[in-house]
């Protein structure tokens, strides 16, 4: 990367950090903004209740992303949802079944589940049995999840993380099993598959808002506000750039 673009990247990053700290301070003194309604998160809040009432399983797929490459952010978005579901499980005793294709994500998922149960060793062991690494290859992972959706008594299905074409295999399996299904990914090529198979969708950046919407974490709300502010900056830069290029 050229030195000029590195300096530009560094400036953007510093603005980002400054804005996060500014909004974090505002949120911490109670100036919490009204967040627009995202139906997928509202539906998700009812999923644990449905699993408790029906005695059936809530399945969360964290996708084929890893914690050691460019898909880390997608996997962390899925882990935010797992954190919420694990906290609910700690209260109700009904553990979600969590599947993933990458073993590094499995370690983080186990950690998130363990954190939610705060030292209750028996509950942690129970929950660990429901954190399942299926396979590294996308096709094998999809086959494993399709089998899981068919064999286990799944009531609700959440698929949030990094997915490729194999999403449709799993999404359609959920549709065939008549399972309530929320899907989310940041991959634009997979979004049509999500739209076609899921009842509620988290498209692109929406999935990164899980921590703010589900757990009201101040740092997540602050970063959400920062993303909005940066989006306005980009918008202004595009308009100014177009005008400057047109005038010249």
């Amino acid at each position: 990367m050229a030195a000029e673009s590195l300096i530009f990247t560094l400036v953007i990053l510093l603005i980002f950090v400054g804005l996060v700290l500014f909004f974090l301070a505002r949120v911490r003194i109670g100036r919490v903004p009204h967040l627009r309604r995202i139906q997928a998160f509202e539906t998700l809040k009812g999923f644990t209740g449905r699993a408790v009432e029906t005695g059936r399983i809530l399945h969360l797929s964290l996708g084929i992303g890893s914690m050691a490459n460019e898909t880390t952010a997608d996997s962390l978005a899925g882990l935010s949802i797992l954190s919420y579901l694990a906290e609910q499980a700690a209260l109700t005793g009904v553990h979600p079944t969590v599947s993933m294709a990458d073993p590094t994500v499995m370690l983080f998922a186990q950690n998130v589940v363990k954190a939610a149960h705060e030292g209750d060793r028996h509950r942690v062991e129970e929950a660990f049995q429901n954190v399942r690494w299926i396979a590294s290859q996308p096709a094998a992972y999809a086959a494993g999840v399709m089998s899981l959706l068919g064999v286990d008594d799944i009531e609700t299905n959440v698929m949030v993380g990094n997915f490729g074409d194999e999403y449709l295999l799993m999404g359609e399996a959920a549709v065939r099993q008549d399972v309530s299904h929320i899907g989310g990914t940041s991959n634009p090529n997979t979004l049509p598959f999500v739209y076609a198979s899921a009842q509620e969708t988290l498209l692109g950046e929406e999935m990164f808002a899980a921590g703010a919407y589900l757990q009201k974490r101040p740092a997540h709300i602050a970063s959400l506000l920062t993303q909005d502010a940066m989006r306005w900056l980009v918008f202004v830069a595009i308009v100014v750039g177009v005008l400057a290029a047109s005038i010249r």
Partner: protein
Amino acid sequence: MGVRIRRILTTVVAIVVGLFVLADIFVSQLTTNILGLGFINQTIHGFSALFVSWLTIIVAFALFLGFINVISVHLNRINTNKPGIIYSVVLLLSLAFTLIVGFSTGGPNSISSQAMFEYVLQPLEATIFALLALFIATAAFRAFRIRNLETFFFVLFGVIVLLGQIPLSIYLWPEFPVIKDWILNVPTLAGVRGILLGVALGTIATGLRILMGADRPYTD
């Protein structure tokens, strides 16, 4: 060691490692080219390369833990007599067979191991992905139902792009390929860029929360 101290330590380690790797991207260029401080570059780059090399070891070990997880989960399913027990038995037998073949014939590059990949795994993967064609058709059948204005435009654009892809469509109306190209290059590309921009901002925010210690998925 107390839980609190362990949490603080892991957070400090995560932040320091993250900052070194991030700094390597900037300092390796800036110090050499602008400030002329090559030794800072070398130090940061050295630590960054070391941490990234550790990552390879951790990922390999994670794979081993994944292997333990598969055995543990399926043994538990067999012990508790859960539905689909036969699949767990077949999985564990296949796993044992693959391991025995691998160890007894000289590892993953042996002829027997390669044959298993070539004649069992690859055809199975191809079969699974071949289902996509059928599933795309069923998903399209469901999606292409006009329920409101949004789905009307969804269907309209979908039909135009489908027709535009067919060479014979020019006999129906010569403008079909032109409109198809416009749909793909203007509104679709604009939408994709908007999504990618949002995803990029979300990714930066997620990374910063980790670097600032606000998110700690690695501590229990």
